[in-house]
């Protein structure tokens, strides 16, 4: 705060006035709903008598009841484990591919770079629901070209929409949709590396692979951290893809991911209190995981800088 400089009349209030729309929207559509959800998570409905007549169903204080119920709910825990398994496939594969493609785009003498860059980025423009729908059809034996080829070759035809392959099938949709965006983020920061840096390394006789591993990757570490951070958040919140595949297979339950479970409890069962407690737990877990990751990444970078 430097108030030494004299400011003309009206300047002081201006930033507050400019921020009114954002603040009002934030209070109405972020703060209020979050507060309401937290409040609901500590409430429950008490039914007296047969539950008939007015006043028979009253909302009362529930303490931590909804939370203990949620944490011991095997369906929610299983959903969290499923999403963890799914995330362990999606995040490394998607970011690995994004980094690989970005490095390839950035290498010398590569052909068709503008075309391939655009093609790989294209799935970003396609809604998750439509992506899941397209891949869903490609997984269906009746219409899929993969099954057609396998059939002609006389090879076994696995059921992609069941058991272990289902994880791969779902992960593939997320990888397909997300690789391009992350590739662009990494590629733009690769482009920002001054040319002299790798020219010098090349003169010293470093191979392209060595340049990529020893110079380029460390220099784009901040954007790798950022893409990792957003990928973790997106993965924990997976909802659209399994929901869209659900009509095509019986293996995706209505509570496959934690978010689907919240939806099911709130609108399927009508138990908004349990749903609110689960949503709060998911939000807390997301915050803990993402900030934990950011802190670890920061510490690592500081150590490297100190070295």
């Amino acid at each position, binding site marked *: 705060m430097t108030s030494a400089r004299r400011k003309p009349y009206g300047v002081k209030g201006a*930033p507050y006035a400019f921020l009114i729309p954002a603040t009002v929207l934030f209070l109405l559509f972020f703060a209020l709903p979050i507060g309401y959800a937290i409040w609901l998570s500590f409430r429950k409905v008490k039914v007296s008598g047969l539950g008939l007549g007015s006043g028979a169903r009253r909302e009362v204080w529930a303490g931590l009841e909804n939370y203990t119920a949620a944490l011991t709910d095997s369906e929610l825990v299983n959903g969290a484990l499923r999403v963890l398994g799914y995330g362990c496939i999606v995040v490394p594969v998607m970011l690995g591919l994004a980094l690989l493609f970005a490095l390839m785009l950035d290498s010398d003498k590569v052909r068709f770079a503008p075309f391939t860059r655009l093609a790989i980025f294209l799935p970003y423009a396609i809604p998750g629901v439509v992506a899941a729908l397209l891949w869903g059809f490609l997984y269906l034996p009746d219409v899929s070209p993969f099954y057609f080829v396998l059939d002609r070759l006389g090879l076994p035809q696995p059921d992609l929409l069941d058991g272990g392959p289902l994880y791969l099938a779902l992960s593939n949709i997320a990888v397909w949709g997300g690789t391009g965006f992350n590739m662009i983020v990494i590629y733009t920061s690769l482009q920002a590396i001054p040319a002299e840096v790798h020219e010098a390394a090349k003169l010293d006789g470093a191979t392209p692979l060595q340049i990529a591993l020893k110079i380029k990757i460390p220099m784009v570490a901040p954007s790798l951290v950022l893409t990792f951070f957003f990928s973790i958040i997106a993965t924990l919140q997976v909802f659209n893809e399994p929901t869209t595949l659900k009509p095509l297979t019986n293996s995706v339950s209505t509570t496959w991911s934690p978010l689907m479970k919240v939806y099911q409890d709130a609108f399927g069962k009508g138990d908004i209190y349990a749903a609110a407690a689960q*949503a709060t737990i998911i939000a807390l877990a997301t915050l803990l995981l993402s900030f934990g990751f950011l802190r670890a990444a920061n510490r690592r970078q500081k150590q490297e800088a100190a070295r």
Partner: protein
Amino acid sequence: MSSLAVGKTATAAGSAPGTVQDRPPLRRRIAFVPTVTLLLGALYCLLPVAWVVIAATKSGSELFSTFTFLPGTGFADNVSELSAYRDGVYWQWMGNSALYAGLGALLSTCVSAVSGYALATYRFRGRETLFNVLLAGVLMPPIILAVPQYLLLANVGLTDSYLSVLLPQILSPYGVYLSRIYAAAAVPADVVEAGRMDGASEWRIFTRVALPMMVPGMVTVFLFQFVAVWNNFLLPYIMLSDDEKFPITLGLFTLLEQGANTPALYTLVITGAFLAVIPLVALFLVIQRFWSLDLLSGAVKS
């Protein structure tokens, strides 16, 4: 851009079977491994799109009987059948999506621009706190917002309305973040100061001086938000029950739900998916040159 690439392929193919002396320089000009890797990546990304384009041309019987990548003959029939489905509700969904995404992104860009400008240009008490609180919104799982938003909007009788999908998406924490970074880079402090010397009001300085400088960044914010709203599924899924108000994502989902057990409806779903992809891909191809994606890496560096 792709036509340019195709032109290059033709020249490369034409010169490949040339004399022996021609070959070594050609091989040295092309980095083989990166080019092939990228082409494989492009193939993977284009495959489902190519599939839907071809599948949309097939009639119901062709879909199950002919080879997947062999074009069919039923495209016109498929489109007219889809248009006739429930009195043309499909086109209503497309119109709704355009409304939600267009108007929503426009309002969102306005709010982001004015907020980002204020956060970047002024130093005032509570600035960083306010910024961090707004940003924390990015981390909130959409469901923790959407369920109570639904309950709260139900109290004021706004659920199942256009507003219930539009209003919650106006404030975009990511948009505010990008706008702040862009305003800080694009609007020099002396220009603002010069405006004050001329006696212009703060609002006038913003609209007449700063905003024109921020336009390229704001285009990016608009496009990001347009794609985000167009692709959103969860919020309309929770808020809406009247299918006249559905956006295309939700409409296609309900169509799939009905069609999954009736293979006769597959062609409708596939044609619907194909037509739904066209506007965004077209928009994307036209504007990808204007996207200042550097903004992203700039954001990363700061």
